[in-house]
């Protein structure tokens, strides 16, 4: 083997070693964040690190170590799959956390959901004042179903 390929080999090894160590440190950062942050929302912020950036670094290191071209599309697909599913589950967890009041409102820099919740609560209050206006046929309407699913009253269930 000539010295140039040997040098290239060492460089690739070094880069992938750095990526592997940094990717593992992402997991450690997530664990420290889980233990130290005060509420669910900030813990969610820490939890995303190994799921997206950590996995990217480790798959990149894996592709470098394999030293083939055909493996890269598979690795990209694996990462894209994670990239598509993680925001959906984080959205669901965050939504459930907001509904069940697992947050410290004073720590939020902006609460864009609050106006919507206030509006829905106002609408519900109007309905509650007119129980006679309740129409059984209306029970399956999107408006009512939306309220049963997760209106502001869901937190007290």
């Amino acid at each position, binding site marked *: 083997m000539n010295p140039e390929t040997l040098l290239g080999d060492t460089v690739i090894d*070094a880069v992938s070693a750095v990526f592997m160590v940094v*990717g593992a440190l992402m*997991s450690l950062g997530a664990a420290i964040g889980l233990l130290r942050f005060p509420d669910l929302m900030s813990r969610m912020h820490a939890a995303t690190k190994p799921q997206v950036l950590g*996995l990217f670094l480790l798959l990149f290191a894996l592709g*470098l*170590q394999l030293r083939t071209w055909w*493996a890269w599309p598979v690795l990209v697909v694996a990462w894209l799959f994670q990239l598509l599913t993680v925001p959906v589950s984080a959205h669901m967890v965050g939504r459930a956390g907001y509904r069940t009041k*697992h947050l410290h409102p004073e720590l939020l820099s902006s609460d864009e959901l609050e106006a919507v919740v206030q509006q829905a609560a106002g609408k519900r209050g109007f309905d509650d004042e007119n129980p006679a206006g309740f129409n059984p046929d209306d029970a399956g309407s999107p408006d009512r179903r939306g309220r049963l699913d997760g209106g502001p009253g869901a*937190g007290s269930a």
Partner: protein
Amino acid sequence: MMQLVLTVTAVVLSLAAAGAIIRIAIGPSLLDRVLAADVLLAIFGAALCIDMAVNRHLNNLMLLVALSIIGFVGSVTVARFVADRRESVRES
């Protein structure tokens, strides 16, 4: 060098898994536990990746994808059916 990397990452990932397990144990709410379980799954995925990279094979790749499906389905399901049973809102 790969042996050194393997040792370092094994130590780091073990500490991370210990932290996630502690968070699963102390809670305090169901959503915190779900989140910590998700992180634990991500740590397992990282361990699989490092095993593949150090030993230069692709045997665990399908396991990695399956792991992310499990994490996704699990957290979405639990988040969908979670309910607040705490006495005081200020617990967490």
